[in-house]
Structure formats: C-alpha cells, structure tokens
C-alpha cells in the first residue's frame, strides 16, 4: 500500500448529557491511503457519521473529540484552530452529505454556491471560478452545464442535485472526500449512477474516498477496504473482497448473511437476534456479546481490541490464540 493520507488513531468522541457522558465513538483507529476507497459500514448509531464529523471538526456541540489524533498527509488536524480547520474543510477534505434535497442553499443559484466555494479556497477571479464551476458540472454529468449553472437547486432533481453536491465537494481539489450516505436518500435507479460518478471523479482527481454507508452492497461494489463498525468501535477492517467472502467477526458474518443474493435460493435470510445496544447501555466486555452466536466467558468481561488476523484487523477474542477455550 502507498503512504497513508488520513490516519485516525484511538479517536474518542463523547457527548456530555445530563445522565452522564455518552461515548459515540470509542477509540477507533484506521487509515485511508492515497487514492483508495475506504468503506465504513454499520447500523444506524454505530458511530459512522460521527467519525466523519469528527475528522472534519464539525461535531455538533456539546459533542467533542475526547481523545486520539487525526493526521492528514502527516499533519495533525484534530487540534487546529477553528479558522485553520475551516481552511482544511473544502480545500483538503471535501464532504458529500446524505440528502441532496437539503444540502444546497435554496436561495442561491448553483453558480453562486460553486463560485463562492472555489473562491474561498483558490485565488481565482470571478470569471475563472465560473469557468471552473461549469467544467466541474460538466464532469459530474450535468447536461448543458453552462446554461443550467444559473438555475436554483429546486430546479434540479434529487440525483442531479447530488451531482452538484459532488461538484461542490471536489471544487477545490481535495485530497480526501468523505461521503456520508451519499445515496441513501436517492431513488434506487439513481444510486448506482451517483456512486459511479463519485468513484470515477475521485479517481480522476486523485482524491481518496471515505464512503460511509449502511449499504453493504454499495461497499462491496465500490470500496477497496472496509471497516465494519459496531456500537462506536471497529469490529473488523480489511480488504473488501476478503471481508465479504470470509467474514471473521461474528457480527460481520451476520451482516453478510443478511444480504439477499440471487445465486442462493434461501427461504429466510440470516438474522442477528436482538438489536445494537443504546449508547447508554453498552454491555461490559465485547459490545456484541449479548447477540453473538459464538460468545464465551471472556467476551462478557474483557473488551477485545482489533488485532491482526491474516490481512486484516479483527476485534474478537475468537482470534486471540491463547484465549480460546
């Protein structure tokens, strides 16, 4: 693998509440390499989006990063001043959010929003920024970009708006694009197109992608590596092919079993009993232990940390040689 572009080490995100501190992201570590697509997958509330928000320094107060470090291209970015961090956002890290219908300001034209973003980060004239904006819209596949650029967001369909959002994310040539559920709000028929645009453009512009989604199918088709999150921790991280074909962590195994396939005629999909614990009631030991089919004594008392298993990292006592009964 090439040099790591983004390095997250032991990241902890906490929310102080009246009932005590909630830990939304609990000491996760991973890296995104230049040019690769890292998928982050997990159920709602697993901490996927929170991880993305933490990296760009936009966690809603009172939430905050309580520990760990984030390095981008060797430079530490989790402790930057507000203004320095603002300059990283958009310039070095582009972001695509879930809902294209609400991501764009309804009162500004596409041109105004693109030009504003471009000129915030690049020393271009109004004219040059506009030309660049038209070029970007062209690249994301907006027909008649030069004419449609002066339209307002509500004049575009959902899929077209998400293309505009991608153009905005790429406006200043970022090195990393964090795409948070970029297709969830879209029509199924449009999802594949958007993923395709996102992947193709990031490859062309040399941007790595951190693709956050709950859709394992999207990950399998798009990502190079995948990190599976459960209750604020990474359960398993490794090359996407291996994880899909041969899941090591029982949770990942359950996830894969719950995806319908065309080749196997099954009456009923595998189902993981129970549901993910609330942040207020994370069980002691491995957070997955109450639902795990392979649970044993140690899982109920000690918390497993990710450890290398062949070409990946798995946080499960099953793979701790000495511990297995």
């Amino acid at each position, binding site marked *: 693998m090439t040099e790591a572009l983004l390095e997250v080490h032991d990241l902890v995100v906490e929310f102080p509440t009246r009932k005590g501190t909630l830990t939304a992201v609990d000491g996760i570590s991973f890296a995104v390499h230049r040019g690769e697509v890292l998928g982050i997958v997990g159920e709602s509330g697993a901490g996927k989006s929170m991880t993305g928000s933490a990296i760009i320094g936009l966690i809603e107060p009172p939430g905050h990063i309580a520990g760990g470090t984030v390095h981008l291209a060797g430079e530490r970015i989790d402790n930057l001043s507000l203004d320095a961090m*603002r300059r990283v956002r958009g310039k070095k890290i582009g972001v695509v959010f879930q809902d294209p219908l609400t991501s764009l300001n*309804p*009162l500004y034209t596409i041109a105004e929003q693109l030009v504003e973003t471009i000129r915030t980060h690049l020393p271009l004239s109004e004219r040059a920024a506009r030309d660049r904006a038209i070029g970007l819209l062209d690249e994301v596949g907006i027909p008649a970009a030069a004419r449609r650029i002066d339209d307002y967001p509500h004049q575009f369909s959902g899929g077209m708006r998400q293309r505009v959002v991608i153009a905005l994310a790429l406006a200043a040539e970022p090195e990393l694009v964090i795409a948070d559920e970029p297709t969830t709000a879209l029509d199924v028929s449009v999802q594949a197109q958007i993923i395709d645009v996102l992947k193709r453009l990031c490859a062309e512009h040399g941007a790595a992608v951190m693709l956050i989604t709950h859709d394992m199918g999207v990950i399998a088709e798009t990502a190079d590596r995948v990190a599976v999150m459960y209750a604020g921790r990474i359960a398993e991280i490794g090359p996407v092919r291996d994880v899909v074909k041969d899941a090591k962590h029982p949770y990942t195994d359950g996830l894969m079993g719950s995806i319908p396939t065309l080749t196997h005629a099954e009456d009923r999909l595998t189902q993981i009993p129970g549901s993910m614990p609330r942040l207020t009631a994370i069980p002691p030991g491995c957070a997955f232990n109450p639902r795990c089919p392979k649970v044993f004594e140690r899982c109920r008392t000690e918390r497993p940390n990710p450890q290398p298993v062949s070409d990946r990292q798995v946080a499960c006592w099953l793979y701790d040689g000495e511990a297995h009964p």
Partner: protein
Amino acid sequence: MLAFTIRRLVQSIVVMLVVALIAFVMFRFVGDPVDQMVGLETTLEERAQLREQLGLNDPVPVQFVRFIGKAAQFNFGTSYQFKRPVAELIGDRLPATLELSFVAAAFALIVGIPMGVYTALRRDSWLSKFFLTVSLVGVSLPTFLIGIILIFIFAVNLQILPSFGRGAVVDLGWWSTGLLTASGLKALILPAVTLGLFQMTLIMRLVRSEMLEVLRTDFIKFARARGIKNRAVNFGHALKNTLVPVITITGLQLGSIIAFAIITETVFQWPGMGLLFLQAVQNVDIPIMAAYLLLIAFLFVAINLVVDILYVFVDPRIRIAGAAT
C-alpha cells in the same frame, strides 16, 4: 411575475371594496346623516330637500357606487365637527403619523435584526441573556406605560427631550416634515422608540428563532463543510433564509404601527391621524371615521402587496412558482 402582480392587485381591490362597503354602511346607517348635519330648528321640508340634494333617496347600490367614486377621488365629504373637507384634515395629519410610523419601524428593524442575529449566534453570552430579558419587558409592558416612563426619565428628570408635540416642522407644500429641524428630530425620538419598542422585540425574537432554525439545517452544515467563512455562512447563507418570515411580520406590523399609533399619539400629544380619529369618535364625526377606516385598510393592502412582491425577490422558489401559473 406580471401575472403574479396583477393577480395580487385584483385581490387587493376586492379587499378594498369590502372595506368600502363597511365604511359606507357606517355612513348610511349609523344615525341619520341629515340629523347630524342640520340644526334642531330645520323644518321637515328643508330636511326632505337636503335628503333629495344629497341623493339619500336614491337606491342603496347607487349610493354605494357614488360613495366609491368619490372615495377614489379622495372625496370623503365634510367633517361634522370641523366643517372642513375630510381629505384636507387627513392631509394635514397624515405626514405626522407616517413619519412617526416609518421612523418607529426603521428603529425596530435596524436594532431588532442585529440583536436577533447576535442572540442566535452567541446563545450563551451574558449580553444575549440581557437582550432576551429586556425584550420580555418590551413585549409585556403596555405602550402607554412605556411612553410615560420614557417621558418621566428623559423629559422630566433629564430634561433632554421634549415630552409632547412635533417640534418645529418644515412645510414642503404638500407635506410637513419634522425630519429637517433639530427640534423636530428631538421630538420624534421618544414617540418613535415608544411605538417601535414592541415591534423591535418582536423582530428580535423572530430573527433569533428563525436563525436558530436555519443554522441547524443541512445546507448550513454543508456550507461549513465546504470551508465557507463563518461570516459568509452566518450573514449570507443563514440570514438570507430568515428574511421571508421577517418581511412578512414587518409588513403586517408596519400596518398596525400606523393604525395603532393612536395610543402613542395620545400620550405624546402627537398631531397625527390617531389623535384626529379619537376626536372623531368622541364627536361621532362619521365622515372622518369612515375615511380613516378606508385609509388604514388601503395602507394595509398596499403594504401587503409590496410584501408579496418582495418575497419574489428574496425567494426564487416563489418566483418560479409564480411564473409557472
């Protein structure tokens, strides 16, 4: 856009006709106009002659049409108590009321909007809490009490501002203004603050709640994620999105400022229409009351028309919807 304006105009005319009907009914059926115009010693023949002369024997619809025709030419008849044309009386008083109202509205906007933005952006600062507390006072104290308190402080104790009247006015022929002389301006301060204080607190609270709402939206988060400068996010993206409701309320409130300046004008002995109207009510001077009713209705309708057209400039979604129908 033109169709939109025309449609609104037609609606306005309908509203005006209904108000005119009410004014006309008041004229015609609250007591006998002839009784109010002539003395006790007038004979029955003279009364009948006057009745014929005034056209009171014509069918009611004919009288109504005649009333509207005259009202459209600003002919509202002669005041019973002053024996002068009502249009002339109102023409004398209108500048005072309009100047007071517009200065009060300008004060409310110029002070209210920045305070609203400030209290939304710095929710926890002590100054915000101070503003909010003061605004509670502004909302809950009755206007006349605020006026009397201001007179007590600034006119009686500090003796820096006059307690009544308009000060010296400059006559521009068709308009007498107090804005051009020092004493006129000084006389304007207390009544304008009194009249505008309630509106100011209303606008401040409205801007604050709208801002808080808008700041939570996805497009603000997305603008921040693109690294747009804070100032541009707060005052460009966020504030512009709060303007539609602010324009609505300001428009409606401007109408009520003008209509309900009566109390402030009484407290400060301001020679405006409010005072004239109160005298008219005391003396059952129906021509003045009817003309006042029509004039206020006209101002409300005119302001609402302007507000509707302003929306179109602020919000492109209304623009397109208007053009499509």
